[in-house]
Structures are given as C-alpha cells and as structure tokens.
C-alpha cells in the first residue's frame, strides 16, 4: 500500500529552481496495477525514485504499508528497497558478471536469506518468468526480452509489496514488449501490486488504472480516456 500525500520535490539546476513534483497525491492499493504516463521531463522518474525510496521528498508524507518512511534511517531504507520494492528498469540493470541465477539471488543475499531457501525461491522466481532452463546463462548470452525476464524475476523474488517498473519495455521490440506486458499482467493476476511508468499511451492503457503526469502534477485518467480533476487520486 502506497500513500503519497502532498509530495513536493524541487531541484536546483543551473541556478534555477525546477519543481519536479508539485503537491502530488497518489494512493496505490495492495493488489492494484497502476500505470503512470507522462512525457520526458514531466517528473515521472522523480516520482518513481521517491516511491522506490531512492530519493526523499522535500515536502509531504510518503507512507509505505502504513509507515511514514521519513522515520527510517538510510540502513532501514536499504532494507525496505530490498524487501518491499521490486525494481524493473528500462536498461534491465543486471550485473553482467553474474549469471541469471546469481542476479536473482543477490537481493536475497542482502536480506540474509539462507542458502537453502535462496535456492528454492530463485528457482521459483525464474520459473515464473519462464526462464527455469536458462538460469546459468550470463546476461550477454540472453536476448533483451530474456534479460528483462531475469530482471522481473529479481524484482519478484523478494515477494515485494510493489513492483516498480520504469519503462520496462523501452528497450524491447514490439513482440517482446507484448510478452513482458503479458507477464506483468499475469503477476498482477497472482496478486502483485504494480506501478508501471511509461511514456507510451498504448502500454499505459493496458493497466486497469492510469495516472497522467505533466509538469510535476498528477491527474487521474478515467477508463474511458477523459481526464479527472487535477491532483486527484488521493
């Protein structure tokens, strides 16, 4: 459960203050699948960084599963990233020197999960993304789609509260895009909450709920396609 209340974020860029997030309110439920769509520079990356606990807001409150994350130390935030959030990036961001198995295993190592349990959970996660047979390949021996599947496996292996996907299909062709999107929907169907960030309206439209971001402001897009009230969704 993600609750953003009145979140603000500003940057100083070349002596000028840029407002990246302007009093943003957003709630994502435990099993919800939300897409956030916006052009580049709209503040969607900043939003993702804040939701992903990689960055802290300048104002407002962010509650993750009911707890204000401002109360956490750096160390605890690292643990929260590991346990509650599963990242899927546009560039896959796999460690090239590690095999698919080792990449998926890594977050569990940081959580101190025992080797025996790691083996079970990594096997499970890789099977869920359909890569049970290729777990000992390195990223450069895998296709783009396969690499993104490994990244998805790495995101779900920790059983996170939310999967945060930032342009997950941005580097993929249309066929693999469909595969990855199908897979995300399947994960949603299995009960995972997903926040998908994209600039592609087609991709965004596949989500049951779509939020538009522009100049740091959010607006809910009704399933019909019309736009709701400014700052909605709280």
């Amino acid at each position, binding site marked *: 459960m993600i609750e953003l209340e009145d979140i603000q974020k500003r940057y100083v860029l070349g002596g000028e203050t840029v407002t990246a997030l302007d009093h943003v309110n957003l709630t994502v439920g435990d099993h919800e699948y939300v897409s956030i769509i916006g052009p580049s520079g709209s503040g969607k990356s900043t939003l993702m*960084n804040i939701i992903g606990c990689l960055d802290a807001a300048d104002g407002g409150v962010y509650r993750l599963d009911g707890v204000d994350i401002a109360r956490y130390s750096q160390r605890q935030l690292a643990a929260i990233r590991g346990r509650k959030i599963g990242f899927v*990036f546009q560039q896959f961001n796999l460690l090239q*020197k590690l095999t698919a198995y080792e990449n998926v295993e890594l977050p569990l190592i940081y959580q101190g999960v025992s080797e025996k349990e790691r083996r079970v959970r990594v096997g499970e996660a890789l099977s869920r993304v359909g890569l049970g047979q290729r777990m000992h390949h390195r990223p450069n021996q895998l296709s783009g789609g396969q690499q993104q599947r490994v990244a998805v496996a790495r995101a779900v292996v*920790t059983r996170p509260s939310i999967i945060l996907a930032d342009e997950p299909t941005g580097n993929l062709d249309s066929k693999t895009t469909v595969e990855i999107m199908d897979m995300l929907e399947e994960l949603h169907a299995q009960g995972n909450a997903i926040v998908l960030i994209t600039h592609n309206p087609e991709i965004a439209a596949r989500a049951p709920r779509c939020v538009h971001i522009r100049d740091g402001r959010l607006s809910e897009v009704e399933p019909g396609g019309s736009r709701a009230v400014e700052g909605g969704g709280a």
Partner: protein
Amino acid sequence: MKQSIKMALSSILSNKMRSFLTVLGVIIGVVAVVVLSSLGEGAMDSVTGQIEDLGANLMQVTVKTDRYTGIDLDNLASLADGETISAVSPVLSQSVTAKSTLDTYDCTLEGVGASYFYIRQLEVEQGVTVGELDNDLRLPVCVIGVKVADRLFGTRDVVGQSVSVRGYDLRIVGVLEEQGSSMIISDDEKIIIPFTLAQRMFGSTSITSFYASGASEDVMDQAEQRLRRFVSARVSDPDDDFSLTSQSAVLDMMDEVTATLTTLITGIAGIALLVGGIGIMNIMLVSVTERTREIGIRKAIGAPRSAILMQFLVEAIVLSVAGALIGLAVSTALLMALRGPMGIPTLAVSPGSATLALTFAVCIGVLFGIYPANKASKLNPIEALRHE
C-alpha cells in the same frame, strides 16, 4: 562475509592482468623486505657463528706501537693464572710466499705458542700441532691449512713433506681441519710455526700481539681487567697504544649492527609497501568509478551501505594479502636459490619478516581500501544508476 570474499575473488579474477599489475607493487615490496631481512639475518647468524667458532672466551691484544713493549714470553706466561685467564699465546703474523717442490703460494705465516690451538679451538686433521718443545727448541716445523696443502702439493696427505719459507725448510707435522669459507680469517690459508722461530725469522724481539682465553664466561670481566693492567704497565701510552678485542665485544657490536639493519629494513619495508598500497588504492578508485552503475543496482535492490563498503574493502584486502602471499612464495624460492652463492645453507624466510610482511599487507589493504570503499558506499543510487 563468505559472500564478500566470493564477490571480491570473482571481481579480481575477472580482470586478471590488471589485478596482477596492481599487486605487483605489493609483491615487489614484500620480496624486497623478506629477502633483504632474511639475507641480513642469515649473514649475521653466519658471522656470529664464525665469531663464536673462533674460540670460547677469546680475547686478543694487539700493541700498536713499534717500540719495544716489555712483553716477553716469560711475563706473558705468568699472565695465565688459571683463575681468570686459562691460557695465553703470543702471535706473530706475516705475509709470505711459500714454496714446495711443485709450486709457490702467497699465504700468511703465523708464529704461535703451544696454547694457540687450545685457545683458538683448532684441531689437526692429520699429524700433530706445534707444541711446547717445538717452541723451546725453535724447531723448523709447521702445521698448514688445507688450502695451502692443496695449492702447494695438490693433496692433503702432506705430513712429512717440507715447505720453504724465507730460506727456512719447514717440516710439515700437521694439517689443520678444514674451516670452510669464512668472512673473517681463513685458517685454511695459514702456515703455523713455533713463535720463537717466527721471531728469529723476522728479527723481532718483543711481543706485539697475543691471544688469551678466559677461564670461564663468568670471569671474562676480571680476565679483561687483568689483561689491561698487564699491557698498560708495559706500553708507554696505556690509553692509545694497544687494543683489546674480546669475543663478547664483537658480538655486542654485531647485535648493534643487526639492530641498525633491522631498522633500515623496516624503513624500506614501509616505503615499498606504501608504494604498493597506493597502487591498490589507485586501482580501487578506478574500480569504483567503473562500477558505479553496479553499485547503483546493488543499492536499488537493497544493499545497505555496509555491504557495499565491505565488498570493496574485502577486495582491497584480498588483493594485498594475495600480493603478500605471492611475495612470500617468490622470496622463499629466491632465498633457496641464493643458498649456494651466498654460502649460507640455512638461508630461509625468517618467521619475523614473514609475519611483518603479512601484517603490513593486511594493514595496507584496510588503510588504502577504506577510502575507495567508503566512496563507493556513499554513492547516491539515483546518480549511480544513471551512470553509463
């Protein structure tokens, strides 16, 4: 921890050439330190052993003045009281050319008293030593070192043969046991004759040099005092005219030399390993920059600062310890190869220097690894992820 070491090893092995070049500094540093200090220690042990072999409780007096000294055989003999000084022997040394029927050889001729062999703890391999009677009767006899025998006769079986020195035909009555190569005096290259004969040969009347041996280790101080009193009374300037060398004084000096050498080597060690450490820090900093994105990914998937810090720190320590171990292996091989040429068969890596090198290596790994590791752990994950 196990994971950190595994990660460090895989990262080091994935860039073998660079890792090797990085640790080369540490390897060279360790080899320099270990080989130098082991050589120093080996040489010191060897020299100390030779000094001890010179004879137990040995003291040597050399009068520097050419004038008449007032020391003669009679008063010298009275010096040995049995309580502090057990034996004395005058010595008269000259460089000479010795001839046999076969060859000539430049060597040292030494005229000695009968106690000389006891004081110096010299034994003959064949025949007998130069004795009391030879001195009393000034007999033209000699005991020769093995090298002299080899050079003049081509054999060591020479008792009964004669050598000619300065017109004297000397009958060989004994051959000294081989002493082996020595850095101080080689008795293998000596011809030893009765002191009285040497005096006549060189036309000298007084005694300017003699050996004495203390009755026991406990009375060396008294023995030394007795020697000083005796000689002081017989030279014109007691402060300057003679020198007294005792074995313990030489050993003390050796200890001082060893201490100085150790300090010196520790200094070299410090500098060499410092240079090696800087090499490691340099490459770790490069590594952190190269792996910025990796660090960002690790942080995004939940790595705490401590895990990143540990990963890079362990890598630096593994590098420096690997360097130290390789250095020790190279040193061992090098020292074994040097045994023959140096003439020190016991030459080996001294435990002290090995411990020093390893301790230093770990310290260097931590010291020079902590800065890059800390830098890595403090990276902002967002910026790190954006890094190409």
